[in-house]
């Protein structure tokens, strides 16, 4: 197929990872042929998981992982200073992801239980999503990210247009996929309050949504309570699931409004 844009200068894309499992980058590497096609339009100058070349110049920085130490923070700021566009790749970068769970406990105590008297991680601090440190232009939510969404976002980056993270809940995709609702199976699912975009990955596979993409902007306040009653659930049970992912300060405020403790 002819591509009249082939001769335009290609934007340089660099991947960087902080504290995470690198599963999101693997999702990118797994795009395989699609990734190769994408490299017709962009130059990947830094992707440490699969290449040794290190480009010093880049336009787009794709950042994976949470910020958990001074060292991370300094490095991220340096990266951001060079990049024109910053993409948060995956839950760890976008919201803090499961790394937030550690914020529920005292860091000092955790270090002590883990390393004893030796402290090889002196500059560690509470988990932060990257937008607590630098500006973010594009968010790719999910733990892990959904490959097709990555492609879409990269296309938006190339077009210079914003990417609209779906504002509707996972149920929308779930119903379009004709899944039997988890609630019909007597299970509790966070689909109704979680932002869509993953093609209802978990319910498609028989597991309830755990909210890895974060809460929708405007979750219903009173209604949720009715539902809890209907399924005989306690607020604590719901909170437990929320805290798997929705735990950055930002998200926390939202859900504490929803489910104030001790109600």
């Amino acid at each position, binding site marked *: 197929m002819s591509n009249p844009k082939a001769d335009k200068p290609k934007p340089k894309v660099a991947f960087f990872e902080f504290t995470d499992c690198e599963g999101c980058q693997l999702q990118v590497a797994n795009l395989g042929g699609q990734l190769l096609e994408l490299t017709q339009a962009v130059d990947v100058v830094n992707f440490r998981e699969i290449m040794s070349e290190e480009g010093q110049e880049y336009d787009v920085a794709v950042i994976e992982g949470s910020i958990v130490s001074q060292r991370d923070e300094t490095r991220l700021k340096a990266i951001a200073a060079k990049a024109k566009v910053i993409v948060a790749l995956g839950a760890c970068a976008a919201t803090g992801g499961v790394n937030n769970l550690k914020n529920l406990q005292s860091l000092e105590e955790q270090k002590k239980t883990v390393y004893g008297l030796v402290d090889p991680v002196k500059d560690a601090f509470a988990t932060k999503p990257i937008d607590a440190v630098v500006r973010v232009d594009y968010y790719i939510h999910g733990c892990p990210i959904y490959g097709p969404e990555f492609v879409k976002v990269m*296309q938006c980056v190339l*077009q*210079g*247009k*914003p990417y*609209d993270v779906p504002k509707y809940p996972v149920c929308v995709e779930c119903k379009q996929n004709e899944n039997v609702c988890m609630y019909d199976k007597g299970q509790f699912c966070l689909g109704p309050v979680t932002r869509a975009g993953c093609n209802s990955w978990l319910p498609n596979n028989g597991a309830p949504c755990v909210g890895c993409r974060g809460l929708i902007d405007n979750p219903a306040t009173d209604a949720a309570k009715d539902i809890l009653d209907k399924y005989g659930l306690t607020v604590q049970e719901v909170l437990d699931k929320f805290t798997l992912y929705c735990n950055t300060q930002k998200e926390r405020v939202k859900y504490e409004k929803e489910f104030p403790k001790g109600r």
Partner: protein
Amino acid sequence: MNEQTYQELLKTSPYKPVRGHIIKAQQVTEFEKLFRIELAGQDLEHTPGQFVQVSLFGVGEAPISVCSSPTEKGFFELTVRRVGTLTSALHRLAAGSYVGIRGPFGHGFPLDEMKGNNILIVAGGLGIVPLRSLIHYILDQRKDFGDVQILLGCKTPKDMLFGEEIEDWQKRTDIKFNCTVDRADPDWKGNVGLITSLIPGASIEPKKTYAVVVGPPIMYKFVIVELLKKEIPTHQIIVSLERKMKCGLGKCGHCQIRGVYVCQSGPVFTFEQLKAMEGECHEGECHHVKS
């Protein structure tokens, strides 16, 4: 529908835009850009008040009012305010580029009824855009209409669109023109204040006057009160509404107000029609005060 036209219909697509060639692109304010567009060898044949769906492939589509008059042949014009994805992408285009055009859609201003009557035009902010089409039309067919008054309001003098044309209108003797800004700057010599303040002073023959009001939702509430005070009949007060739109074909549902699809039945409505939409109008467009 007979069988033959039905078979033809099956082969068409109302979603297929035609190619529009931008022959002029002019930044008119910081946020607004004017485009003059040519369709290959044909006129748009719209009524003032109608809109087109402008699309850029790979970006999307948005409804934009035509701001030139059908009396101007060979091209039509759009004024686009940069607010989101598509409008920003449009702003990056220069003369020579192509856009997709569908339409015109909707009902425009009821020109036939308006002819022979006095016209009061009240424009707030971006509302001047669809009204410019009407104004051009009236000026081109001046003898078909009675007295014509134009009241224009905007936030600051910098936001004023079509400055040169406005100077023209001010100079003309066959129309009355008056404008006001919410906040003046040092060079401003005209009125300062809300547009509603211009209405009480206007001389209006209610039974013979069609008032055409276009502006942000909140403006309707106050302007219409003033017009009602002047005893203009509700079916002679005309407004144009903004709603989210996707298809322009009365199907996609986004623009619906109660049972009415704005893209098909509107965007131009009389205040009388508006009142029937009570409860789903916005910010008192229809004057319903929520009980």
